């Protein structure tokens, strides 16, 4: 998935916050270009997937929740005026749909503090040991965070930088509060990671 770990510049695939590209696609999609809408789906679905999963939905329902948000968008595109508003709209709807679906998912199946259907962070057979080890230690540090911090950082990590303010409402955080909350959560995580002698976080 990620082959250039050492320089830290290509983690997680697509660059975050390619707003010019998104803006062009957004305009085309608003003009009825469904292929442009498909390309927007490619860019924003990784974020929406994490939003749905962070609500505790299983994988099948999470996929349906994300699809539902995109289908509902067909009727609302005309009311959305900026790519940032689009991201916030999709996050809000995905979250709302995921909440509604939670009530249909038996409580026993709800994913708790630790999703039990994520893959094991242990190394895969073809994986370089250093990357796997780094992931195991990062996973351990993330799991020592509070539930709220873990879920916030999980979603925020997929949000392009300029969208933070717009996304705060979508995450039920008043504007002006997501910054401090995120700051506290990040500070907790950094402290854990920097205390980790084995790691190379600096």
């Amino acid at each position, binding site marked *: 998935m*990620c082959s250039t770990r050492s320089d830290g510049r290509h983690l997680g*695939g697509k660059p975050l916050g390619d707003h010019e590209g998104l803006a062009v696609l957004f305009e085309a999609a608003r003009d009825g270009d469904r292929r442009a809408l498909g390309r927007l789906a490619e860019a924003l679905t*990784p974020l929406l*997937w994490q939003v749905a999963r962070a609500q505790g939905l299983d994988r099948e329902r999470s996929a349906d929740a994300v*699809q539902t948000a995109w*289908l509902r968008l067909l009727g609302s595109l005309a009311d959305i005026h900026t790519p940032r508003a689009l991201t916030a709209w999709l996050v809000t709807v995905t979250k709302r749909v995921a909440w509604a679906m939670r009530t249909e998912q038996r409580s026993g199946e709800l994913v708790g503090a630790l999703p039990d259907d994520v893959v094991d962070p242990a190394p895969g057979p073809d994986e370089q040991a250093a990357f796997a080890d780094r992931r195991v230690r990062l996973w351990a540090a993330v799991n020592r965070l509070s539930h709220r911090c873990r879920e916030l950082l999980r979603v925020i990590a997929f949000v392009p930088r300029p969208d933070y303010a717009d996304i705060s409402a979508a995450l039920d955080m008043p504007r002006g509060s997501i910054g401090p909350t995120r700051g506290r959560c990040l500070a907790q995580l950094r402290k854990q990671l920097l205390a980790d002698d084995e790691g190379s976080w600096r």
Partner: protein
Amino acid sequence: MSRDDPDGPLGKLDDLDGRVLREVRWLWESLDPAPADLVDRIRFAVELEDSEVEVVRVIEHREVAGVRGDVHSRMITFAGGTVDFMVNVQARGDGTYRVDGWLSPPAPHEVEVRTPAGPLRTSANEDGRFALGRIPSGFVQFVIRPRGRTSAVSTPTMTL
């Protein structure tokens, strides 16, 4: 460290914050990635020509093994605000599927099954029943167009 991010007094990210967030993103992408075909399913779904779409939820999805072992069927139940429906999808053994459906409340609504090979259309009868004989394997999206309404009722894209 300056703290002048407009979204909060402590909101300014430094380089290490940015790196940590990228690592967190990488962690979740590797531990809990979106299904590989999700974007393709969404792309297929949004090519729907309708603009007002009510999306039904999958309430139940049962797989039934046939008596002879070679026949495999699925019973899928969908619920929405306008119409609920159930489909029984049966493999025909030649790579295509037969679909029998029931709408509730029963009404002779138009039914479209979108497939990568193009849409298949039929109409439910007065009892809300419909059937389509040869649906190719691959993506499928059920779309009901209730009489007298402008919005369509659609399922998410599924794979047969």
